[in-house]
């Protein structure tokens, strides 16, 4: 078991997938992170050297991920709402924000768009 | 007025067909009547001592009667029935199986049986049957060990071998003569017959093709062929089977020779477990609307299909990682007389024997007369 940014990962997991388990890190970001520290894409968590683990943790702690990112997204929506923009209003109404049609296919917007959005 | 259905006429017609089929079968089995007994003898590789024959005879006496034996009995009954002017004969009265069965089981009783019975039993144990029990293909039978001297090395055997030998030499001489007499302008003789494999539609053995298509899923023939080759390679490389004497393979090849030709090995395995009959549930034969299984004979392709299906089903219960591995292991198990496939066939035969009394009967339907 290896700790990366305080989270415990089993040794047989891929490093790439382990990084992607953080909110805010996807395919591309994790690939770039691996390249920055010269870790090959099929590397397992157990094969990481100590220095590489520390490097990764340091890099992750500098990034805006997890709760910081969630708070930022919520703040952005709230700001839009408070300044009275259309985008803010659409969020509050639970309707599509970016000019999509509303006659059909707005299930996702109904489900997700709101001021206190669940993330 | 609607035509009346004459049930009796239909039944006699059916029986005539069956009778006329019976002698043709014996012609097929051997080249002539004098050869038929000879060709049905089992060909042993190991010099043919009397012990093995006696063993086989004993097995024939103790185990269940062969299904084709049943068919012959049935046809005999039907013949008699025709002579008795349509009076249906009950199997209990006509077949006489009960007493002979008892005698075969009880040796003490057999000693004190009437002379007629004893004669009959002795005749049955002589080893040669008057009808074919062979389920193997003609092709396999042709490829006997060419050592020449077969099992008995008796006088008639030797004569037969000499006869075959002379035939072969004559044919080769003819071929050589034909080769020399080329038409002017030709450099090479014409090929006698194009081998079957040269036609792209029939480049595989029929059994191999049938097996491959039966393991095909979702129409993916390529994957099925890949698996088939993996199975054949496994058969080729796995140690030769320890054949269970109670469940022998229908072959005269010794077991160590089997893996050298995996296709033949596969054919032998499948043909050995292939059932001769299937039990078809028929309604209306007995009262009360219940359906009763009645044995129906199968042709070769149907027999093989049943066996292959059983083998594939049994292989699904194995725990190997790959399908080809499971299937190959199951095939070797069948060759060694293990596995549930043999039990399945025994069950089919048992049910078939129970249902044979109803053979040839038509379901009772209500005929409305106007």
């Amino acid at each position, binding site marked *: 078991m290896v700790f990366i940014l305080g989270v415990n990962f089993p040794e*047989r997991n891929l490093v790439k997938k382990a990084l992607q388990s953080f909110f805010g890190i996807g395919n591309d970001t994790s*690939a*770039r992170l*691996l*390249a*920055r520290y*010269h*870790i*090959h*894409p*099929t*590397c397992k968590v157990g*094969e990481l050297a100590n220095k590489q683990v520390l490097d990764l943790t340091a890099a992750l702690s500098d990034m805006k991920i997890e709760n910081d990112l969630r708070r930022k997204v919520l703040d952005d929506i709230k700001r839009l709402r408070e300044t009275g923009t259309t985008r803010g209003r659409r969020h509050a109404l639970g309707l599509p924000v970016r000019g999509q049609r509303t006659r059909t296919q707005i299930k996702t917007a109904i489900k997700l768009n709101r001021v206190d959005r669940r993330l | 007025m609607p035509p009346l259905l004459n049930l009796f006429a239909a039944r006699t017609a059916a029986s005539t067909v069956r009778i006329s089929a019976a002698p043709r079968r014996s012609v097929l089995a051997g080249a002539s009547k004098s050869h038929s007994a000879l060709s049905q003898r089992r060909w042993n590789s190991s010099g043919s001592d009397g012990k093995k024959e006696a063993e086989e005879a004993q097995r024939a006496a103790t185990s269940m009667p062969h299904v084709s034996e049943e068919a012959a009995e049935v046809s005999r009954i039907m013949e008699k029935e025709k002579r008795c002017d349509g009076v249906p004969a009950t199997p209990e009265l006509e077949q006489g199986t009960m007493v002979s069965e008892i005698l075969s089981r009880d040796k003490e009783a057999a000693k004190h049986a009437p002379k007629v019975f004893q004669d009959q039993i002795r005749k049955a144990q002589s080893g040669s049957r008057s009808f074919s029990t062979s389920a193997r293909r003609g*092709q396999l039978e042709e*490829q006997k060990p060419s050592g020449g001297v077969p099992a008995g090395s008796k006088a008639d055997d030797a004569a037969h071998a000499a006869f075959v030998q002379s035939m072969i030499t004559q044919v080769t001489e003819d071929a050589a003569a034909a080769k020399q007499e080329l038409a002017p302008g030709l450099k090479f003789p014409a090929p006698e*017959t194009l*081998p*079957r*494999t040269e036609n792209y539609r029939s*480049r*595989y*053995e029929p059994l191999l093709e049938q097996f491959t298509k039966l393991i095909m899923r979702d129409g993916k023939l390529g994957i099925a062929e890949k698996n088939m*080759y993996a199975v054949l*390679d496994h058969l*080729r*490389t*796995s*140690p*030769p089977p320890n054949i269970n004497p109670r469940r022998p393979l229908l072959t005269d090849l010794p077991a*160590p020779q089997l*893996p*050298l*030709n*995996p*296709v*033949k090995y596969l054919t032998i395995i499948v043909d050995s477990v292939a059932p001769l009959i299937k039990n078809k549930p028929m309604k209306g034969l007995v009262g009360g609307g219940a359906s009763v299984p009645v044995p129906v004979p199968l042709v070769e392709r149907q027999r093989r299909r049943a066996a292959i299906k059983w083998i594939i089903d049994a292989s699904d219960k194995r*725990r190997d*990682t*790959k399908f080809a591995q499971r299937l190959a292991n199951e095939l070797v198990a069948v060759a060694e007389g293990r596995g549930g496939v043999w039990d399945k066939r025994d069950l089919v035969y048992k049910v078939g024997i129970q249902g044979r009394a109803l053979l040839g009967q038509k379901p009772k339907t209500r005929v*409305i*007369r*106007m």
Partner: protein
Amino acid sequence: MVSPFCWGCLTRLRPTPRTLLPSPSSVSRGPAFHTSAVFHAGLRPGSGRGATAVSKFRQPSNASMKKRKKPVEKSRPPPVGERKAIRKRIVLSNPNALEVEGLQELSEETMVDSRLHGTALALPVPMLDQLRAVQAFKPNQGWSIFRRPCTILRQETLQLGRFFDKVSGDGEHKGPFVKKKIISGPSKSGKSVLLLQAMAMGFIKKWVVFTIPEAQELVSATSSYAPLSEEQPHLYVQNEATAALLSRTVVANKAVLSKLRVSQDHPALSAVTPGMTLEGLANLGVQDPASAWTVFQALWGELTATAAAPGLEKNFTPRPPILVTVDGLGHWMTESKYRDAEFKLVHSHDLVLVRHFLRLLKPGGDQPALPNGGALLYATSTTMNPPSVYAFDLILKRAAARAAGFKFNDPRFPRAEAYSNIDPRVLEALTSQKSKHAQEKKLGHQVLGGVTHDEARGFMEYFARSGLLQETISDEWVSEKWTLAGGGVIGELERIGRRLRVAA
């Protein structure tokens, strides 16, 4: 008019069974003259079965029957690594196949004997472990159906054998010759098996054999990598792959390496003692992958040394020739799957291991590539879906043209297309220059095609004598199969040999 039915029949008809008639309760529940109430009663919510039949407003109703749940199979996946082990398993013997009588083994005499041309030669049994160690056998080759591994002595093998004999023989032509060759050819034409035969000859002649069995594994980003040093950040070292190479070399060449001793100074390696064997030196790198690259360089320096460093003369014995084989060269001619810190793809030639072996191939360097003689045999591969690299194809075409006698100035000499995006590094790495050393020839190129009819016949006879092919082998039959096998492509011949089983 008379009815066709007789009354007797009709009277004898049984009454219709009651179950088929509509039951009186379902019909006459309400008043006979007004049925709508009865109808609605069934639809009223809460009244038994009718309630479920009413569909809600604008809810999609599913007309199909409810699907029955499939029984969940509770089979556990096989243990980790088992499937890979099955995939990579190499079986070298089939006890069911017949022992071939009069089979000769590959040895110093037989490998140059042109009388044996076209016959199968068995690989010596003690050598099989060495060949396994250098991963000379591939899982998709048909070793598993024969009694023991054999190879056909084909024309190219004989040529190789003569070269091996020339380099380490005792004749007057003895000398540290170097053969540099790229082997290409269509799929299944026996390129990897030719490399295997070369390795076997190397082991027979007591050469040191280095192999890269899968060139792709070095560039497919499946093993660790790191920048070489602070000064050269654009070069990358692969410690695990280097350690694996060292371990292969040590296991296979134990007999040779254990007799040679360290005779050079290695300031970078503190663990090296003066009297150490080269086997011990290589094992340092196997045990500690972090130092594998340094150890490999030290080992290479020792093996290519022609004289001892001052003060270490008593440990020096003449170094044996070296054989280097690489299978799948095409993968090294493009960018690798590794990324640098800026997320750009690393070129294969920037990986030090690849760079080392490619630099050996390039003639015209200041130092001879192998001062003690040897061979560099680099084969292309078609099995692992190699990348198509225009520059590499051009180089192969040029080599073929040069072999056919075209000069560079000849208009028929292949040129790069004007707008082709050609990789200059590939061109530069493999372009043949005039060699500065007499015993080093130009970079050669060998196209492996089909075998000849005689070789095909020998191969098919080997099948027949192993009991796998039950046919009469005649010249006509062999030439028919030779044609079917695409002009004697040996892999296709093998397929025919193991598959033609149908009795005509």
